[in-house]
């Protein structure tokens, strides 16, 4: 298996939300609040010594996904070929039937999500599997006006961009081994 991973150049991100909306459009996520790509704003400091950064969180396709371990119906699995974590909506019990929805609590990054519809099934980022199959990058990567995102095998990304696993707004959960590489924005950036 060659684990696929995500690269985010935090120094380039202007917080424009293009990746998030491109994802919603591509996957037709009409509901407000359902975002397979999430953008968090990080503000620190006191005027006039400030720090502002953004964190782009799709699914980092953990090597040992906490959501998968937590699922009572084995609806979440990790693909052998590329390590992408996928959910089988037929196997997912749905928000009401599952009751505890432990996948929600398992993931600190709030990647698993449920829509507003009745007994909604869990949904999440899958790196745009069907686009990857076509040899294309995921829609978020192709959308980013700052060319700050990339998807490749984790090994290739580490070779290109180093091995920073933490950035402003993201603390590395050691046990889960998220497949992510950052160019983090240091707090003394400006």
């Amino acid at each position, binding site marked *: 298996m060659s684990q696929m991973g995500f690269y985010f150049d935090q120094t380039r991100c202007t917080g424009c939300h293009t990746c998030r909306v491109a994802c919603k459009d591509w996957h037709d996520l009409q509901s407000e609040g359902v975002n397979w790509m999430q953008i968090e704003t990080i503000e620190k400091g006191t*005027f006039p010594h400030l720090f502002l950064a953004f964190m782009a969180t799709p699914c980092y396709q953990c090597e040992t996904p906490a959501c998968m371990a937590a699922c009572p119906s084995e609806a979440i699995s990790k693909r052998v070929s590329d390590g992408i974590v996928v959910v089988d909506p037929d196997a997912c019990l749905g928000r009401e039937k599952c009751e505890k929805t432990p996948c929600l609590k398992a993931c600190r990054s709030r990647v698993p999500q449920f829509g507003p519809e009745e007994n909604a099934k869990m949904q999440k980022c899958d790196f745009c599997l069907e686009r990857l199959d076509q040899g294309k990058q995921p829609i978020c990567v192709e959308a980013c006006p700052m060319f700050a995102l990339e998807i490749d095998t984790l090994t290739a990304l580490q070779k290109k961009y180093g091995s920073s696993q933490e950035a402003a707004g993201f603390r590395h959960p050691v046990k889960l081994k998220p497949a992510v590489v950052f160019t983090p924005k240091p707090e003394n950036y*400006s």
Partner: protein
Amino acid sequence: MEVSKTCLDGDVRVVNTGCCHDCGGRCVLKAHVKDGRVTRFESDTGDDPQIRACMRGRAYRQRLYSPDRLRYPLRRVGKKGAGKFERVSWDEALNEVAGRLKHVKETYGNASILLMASGGNQGMLHGPLPVGAMLQEFGGFTRTWGIASYEGAMYASMATYGTIRTGNSREDLLNSKMVILWGWNPAVTIQDPGTSLMLARVREKGIKIVAVDPRYTESVATFASQWIPIRPGTDSAVLIAMAYVILSENLQDQAFIDQHTVGIEKYKDYLFGVDDGVQKTPQWAESISTVPAEVIAQLAREYALIKPAALIAGWAPARAAFGEQYSRAANVLTAITGNIGVSGGYASGFMRAYSSREFSHKKAMAPPDREKARPTGNPVEDGALPRKYSLHKLYGGTNPSGARIHNAKIFDAILRGRTGGYPADIKLGYVVASNCLNQNPNTRRGEAALKALDFLVVHEQFMTPTARFADVVLPVNTFMERNDIAPPWLGSPYYIYLNKAVDSLYESKSDLDICRELAPKLGISPMMYNFSEDEILQGIAAGRNDIPDYGAMQRDGVLKIRLDEPVVSFKEQIENPDNTSFPTLSGKIEIHCEHLAEMGDPSVPSIPRYMPHAESHDAPLAKQYPLQLITPHDKKRAHSTWHNVSWCSEVEPHVIAISPVDALDRDIRDEDTVDVFNDRGRVRIRARVTERIMPGVVELTQGAWYDPDEKGVDRGGCANVLTRDEASPGGAHPMNSALVQVEPSPQD
């Protein structure tokens, strides 16, 4: 022409089109169309530089297929502004509009018809153009002048250089040794889609970027290594003090000044206090702007000595009372440091470095008729004298016709007419591609004005705050439903060809088709309407000198023009001054502008000056309203467009940003509901307490839709409820010059 290709979904057609509202950028969108519906978008995946759409373009399906789209022509049934309408047929609606137009023409004359048009829904063809052509043929109309975005910057650019083709193309920033972003947040405003990526590359190359801004914006945070917070409305004082430092320490480019400029001595008289006894020292500017004197001096020295350096003066600080003075001061500073006409420098001005639209400093032209305004073909403007304060002796820029009404004053003009000193008594308003009630200053006065009209017709896609006041609303299609061509406002070297992706939804029509049906009812047949959409577009393209292959542009949806080297404005004038001059009256860069001097009016000084006004931070009114309101652009919208799109609005709630210091003084906590008010109106909105705005300043982004409750308190957060409906002499709108107070809202 629509282009099909194999794609992921098999039977999906991919239509090469683009995004085209009023941010200034024009971006590639590839619409996936299945069974006559757009199902998803891709953006530019082609050659560099890619013109990638932003969040707004990507969210377009929610706008196109919004349940709130206007479906049919509507006629008012309730009171004006109550938003009660009945569905009528196109024939009924257009008969009514035609009848009213004819009645007003016969009773009051054509000047009583006011076209309120903007760029909200406009390509090179669709939008105001066909409406203007119709009203012109009908005998004319009163039109407006004064673009809220940039009129101050444009006036200053004309006064200094005689043209608005200034600055260098974006990629040339990589040749700078220092870049100053003054009051400019391109990460949000877009304007040119490639700007942010270029600024990131500039930073990554190790080039120092300094940002001067009252807010710690996304651009400041991402690109700048130094942030200089500055009190709004005082930018000119700091720029003037920088000139003082440079000239008193002999850091200027004297050879450049001698060769290419006029009037440095007059400016020195002002800087060194000869004419008013006040030396414009950094200490003087500190007391006005809050920027420490040593920071001003240091910035001045750095900018003067690190050559070449690019000072990019954004338009926002010029959206202020006497905003022209800020732009003039910036332009002059770029001149005295010799940063003009050289790669890596930047002639601060209007920013339109590349454009096949303006040619004034490329082509010799006959001298203009200096006694009259420029002829326009609009009979109402025939023989009009130049407007007071207009730069009517120069080519380019804004038409100086005295028959026009400034956009900031249209409400006052409607209410007061000729007795108020305006060129016409307005009876009928015709609104196209504009949400003028929301986007012009002093919305509540605007409400009174729109109610006072005999008749108001609005072309719209949604029931906007402006459309609510209409007598007849005509549903217009979007650019996904018609063909058009769109160059970016700032003239980056490309065009987007907007191929029609789907048929017009419901009963909506293009502005062109509406006019085609309306014109016969007015008994006219403008020549333009004899041609098909495609023929008109081909004609428009033929008028440009940089569209060699119309068919290829149409097929690809984009035409990227390859430049051999970056555009450097005024390169010819600087390299070859004996054969090329600036298109000013003197032929040189005008530090002292003789055209302005001739006016002999202190509100349009011949050299840049810092000029306080009725709503300056230290004006008497500040005792009652101690906070300075600024009304910048919001990433969630382009002006008021996309306001009603949840994919965008879910980014963050609409708030007023206030510093912790000011919030504490008022017992306001983050997320509290507060009232923001002055004598013009009151807005009730959620507070965002943030360090990212300097103390003494509050920020309410413009464009949210006016939504008054029964007491007239705006619950929608429309910034223009609070802005002042005055215009600077040069035309700058005072959108960032309003004093307000903020207090916790009363319990409902």
